[in-house]
């Protein structure tokens, strides 16, 4: 039985009874909260407590962002506080994975490998051009999931608890890896909305709005779209305009805080629905709850 998950970074939604009622009515099983890129945009522990009280009809999943050493202790304290309250944790760096493994082994937590560590060269917006001159063997080797190879299977078997869900977006090549991953015992969470291209510690949104990171929470939920127009030129140490034909082949991108995304491949949606153990919708990619619910009802019907 596939699960339906809603991912929320605007935590006020999880305190809103109407929102919770509506998603319950359409069959949502799991609520996830947090983000991949920035610990400053995690809910504080009081908010987590409130979310727990209001969402006890759902399974709950906490998303833990990539953590640098300067704030690793804070992130671990947060992990320690939420670990007993949630059903699953999404990790986006190996240090957090190690911490959970060493500290919370007794909880038998479900762990998801988020797209901070689960990725592929297919996440490059211009990947098709990079691979155009390569043989099918080389393309096949590099366009699969970075987790889908016998060396990573061996690493996880011998160095971790090896009971993971792996999150992957809707892209044709990486979806081909999902059968192999499932055969190895991994569960597949399909991210239905966006492909995480890059994360930056030097937060582009904070810089754009001329704010210090940490004082930027108000702009983190802003709807920012960017279009690639100029390339870096090393000799000029400046950027120069790219040709229209190149510009046309690069998809527009969305930015949430310190993370940049491109759109999923719509043509692979049916394959994704079939391969998923969990279908994950991200509220950030919808203008309104109505639009998200309409989309879920259309896509999830019959799954």
């Amino acid at each position, binding site marked *: 039985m596939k699960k339906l998950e809603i991912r929320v970074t605007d935590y006020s939604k999880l305190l809103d009874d109407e929102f919770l009622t509506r998603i319950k009515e359409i069959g949502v099983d799991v609520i996830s909260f947090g983000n991949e890129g920035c610990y400053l945009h995690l809910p504080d522990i009081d908010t987590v407590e409130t979310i727990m009280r209001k969402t006890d009809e759902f399974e709950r999943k906490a998303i833990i962002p*990539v953590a*640098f*050493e*300067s*704030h*690793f202790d804070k992130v*671990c304290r947060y992990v320690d506080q939420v670990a007993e309250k949630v059903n699953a944790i999404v990790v986006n760096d*190996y*240090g*957090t994975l*190690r*911490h959970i493994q*060493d500290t919370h082994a007794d909880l038998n937590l479900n762990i998801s490998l988020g797209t*901070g560590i689960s*990725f592929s060269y297919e996440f*490059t*917006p211009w*990947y098709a*051009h*990079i691979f*155009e*001159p*390569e043989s099918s063997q*080389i393309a*096949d*080797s590099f366009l699969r999931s970075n987790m889908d*190879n*016998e*060396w*990573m299977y*061996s*690493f996880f078997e*011998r160095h971790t608890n090896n009971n993971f869900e792996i999150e992957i977006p809707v892209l044709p090549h990486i979806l081909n890896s999902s059968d192999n991953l499932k055969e190895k015992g991994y569960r597949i969470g399909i991210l239905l909305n966006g492909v995480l*291209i*890059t*994360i*930056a*510690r*030097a*937060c*582009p949104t*904070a*810089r*754009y709005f001329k704010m*210090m*990171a*940490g004082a930027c929470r108000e702009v983190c939920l*802003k*709807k920012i*779209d960017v*279009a*690639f*127009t*100029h*390339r*870096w030129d090393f000799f000029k140490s400046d*950027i120069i305009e790219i040709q229209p034909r*190149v510009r046309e082949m*690069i998809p527009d991108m969305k930015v949430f805080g310190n993370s*940049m995304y491109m759109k999923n491949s719509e043509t692979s949606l049916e394959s994704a629905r079939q391969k998923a153990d969990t279908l994950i919708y991200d509220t950030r990619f919808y203008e309104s709850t109505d639009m998200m619910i309409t989309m879920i009802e259309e896509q999830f019907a019959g799954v």
Partner: protein
Amino acid sequence: MKKIAIMAPTRNLEMSVLHIEAGASELYLGLNGRVINSDFDNFTFNARFNRMDGIPVQVESVEELGRIVDYAHANNVKINYTANLHYMSAILKKDFDRYIDIGLEVGVDALILSNFGVMRYLRDRKIDLPILAGVFLFTPNIEQTKFLQDLNVDRVVLPQNITFEEICEFKAKTDFSVEIFGHFGGGTNCGRCMALHSPTIKDIGPGCRAGFNVYIDEKLDAEKFYFLDGAADCCLCSVPDLMKAELDVLKIVGRESPIPSVNAATTRMYEIVQDYTLAGMTMPEIRNKLSREEDVWDEIWVTRYCERKRCRFKKTPITDSYII
């Protein structure tokens, strides 16, 4: 206070000689994938493509690789062999084995790897050369190094946007040799950034330094904006502090450099700042001396790095945007 080893890039003997004469004590390099398998076009077994913007990036033959290793060893310089792709599929196991075996046969001193699975595999193959955990592995916290300990790794390369205080933490709390990208590099979390520099379309360049039109709430808010560019390119003025912190290795990038002599000048600058520091000079005194004696200081450094506030460890709009 001891000197920090400078690790410089190379793709041929000529470039190796330039960097060694400039003071590099380690070189890093890779081998063109086509030497192993003629199917490879842009890809090889390391973090750079075979060519960037038409310029070769890799050593082009096993013979040339051997010549570089021999010359480096004759000058007490170590060779670090890159096999540091983000990940690799075992489909290419035979080719990858050959790539590694060639490195072993010519006598490289260490392997730069950026994938836990590949590290596991090579340790299982009983390859006991030192392993340097490259920047593409992306090691943002000390906890992650526990996996590296399990794999008997020797050195950790820290992410480009690491802070000075974090470098000190890694030095104080781990037994690893610690390396940083000293000069240039990317502006995002390299290793988990797929805005890759395109080898096929010159018009794309490195995505993390591109210019973007920015739309806020669907309205155009800025044009030609360096939106992603958080690259703190230079740490020359922080070299005395890095020496006090006992940083082990500072890496200079540029295997794809079109003018190797200019690239080697960067190695030389980091080397002479260390010499002046050991001679007791302060950084303001060193800057004055560089301004008087080194053409590249005013021509390149001041305009590209100082005036543009590209300091890696000083307070700038870039470092202010770090998630601390």
